[in-house]
């Protein structure tokens, strides 16, 4: 099997999405912060959709406890997630301009590291880190679009997961209630529903459809 050319893959995407939307997707750039259950799924959706430029950021390594819901393979255990997902994304979308940072995001480095893309997806797992990233982006990078995830743990109905437009550039996906700290597990399908909400909102922003 020979690899399809850049033109062949682009044409296939155009046929699915239409010329205008694919032009916008190819010109778009998204950074995914945290590539666990939310972020690995978000990045894969965006790569498949033909987003032109993707950045993935995570400092963690693939652990066996991740395999129930995160887009890694058993043979990738121990690898940095940024390297493992980079490999997978490169196979899905060989002509996507993908970059990766194996680094912990902080209030100090966020203004520099998250300044290069149009849309920022917050896909951390810990509440204090979500709070830090969202507040820092809203304070320091107010012109960026920000899509955050909060509340996707447990077995409650997937119908409770929604996309809420908070302000002009800021969206939150999830039920904003179900906390992994309450002893709820993380079920792959429900986490993926939230990730799909986030990826789809990013695609809608790229399509200049800003409402929810």
């Amino acid at each position, binding site marked *: 099997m020979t690899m399809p050319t850049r033109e062949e893959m682009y044409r296939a995407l155009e046929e699915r999405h239409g010329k205008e939307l694919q032009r916008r997707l190819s010109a778009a750039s998204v950074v995914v912060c*945290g590539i*666990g*259950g*939310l*972020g690995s799924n978000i990045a894969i959706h965006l790569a498949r959709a033909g987003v032109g430029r993707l950045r993935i950021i995570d400092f963690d390594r693939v652990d066996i406890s991740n395999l129930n819901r995160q887009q890694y393979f058993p043979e990738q255990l121990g690898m940095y997630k940024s390297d493992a997902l980079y490999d997978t994304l490169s196979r899905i979308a060989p002509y996507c301009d993908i970059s990766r940072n194996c680094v912990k995001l902080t209030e100090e480095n966020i203004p520099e590291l998250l300044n290069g893309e149009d849309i920022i997806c917050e*896909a*951390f*797992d*810990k*509440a*204090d880190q*979500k*709070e830090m990233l*969202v*507040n820092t982006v*809203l*304070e320091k990078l*107010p012109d960026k679009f920000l899509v*955050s*995830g*909060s*509340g*996707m*743990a447990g077995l409650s109905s997937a119908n409770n997961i929604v996309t809420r437009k*908070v*302000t*002009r550039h*800021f969206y*939150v996906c*999830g039920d*904003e*209630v*179900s*906390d*992994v*700290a309450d002893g*709820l597990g*993380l079920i792959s399908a429900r*986490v993926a529903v939230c990730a799909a909400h986030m990826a789809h909102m990013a695609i809608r922003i790229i399509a200049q459809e800003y409402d929810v």
Partner: protein
Amino acid sequence: MLTINGKEYELNGKTVAEALAEIGYGGQRVAVELNESIVPRDQYDSTVLYEGDHLEVVRFVGGG
């Protein structure tokens, strides 16, 4: 009257920190937008709410 996440409250004259505590967000991980602008976390105690203000509060819970 002012609105928080679309609901009306009588919290005129309260600070953002006081309003958060009254509606059950005390000690929670949040982001707060007041009339479409972020309220920096170090200004929750000094930002006073007025009639007609629109507050949006996002609560962050663990899992991802």
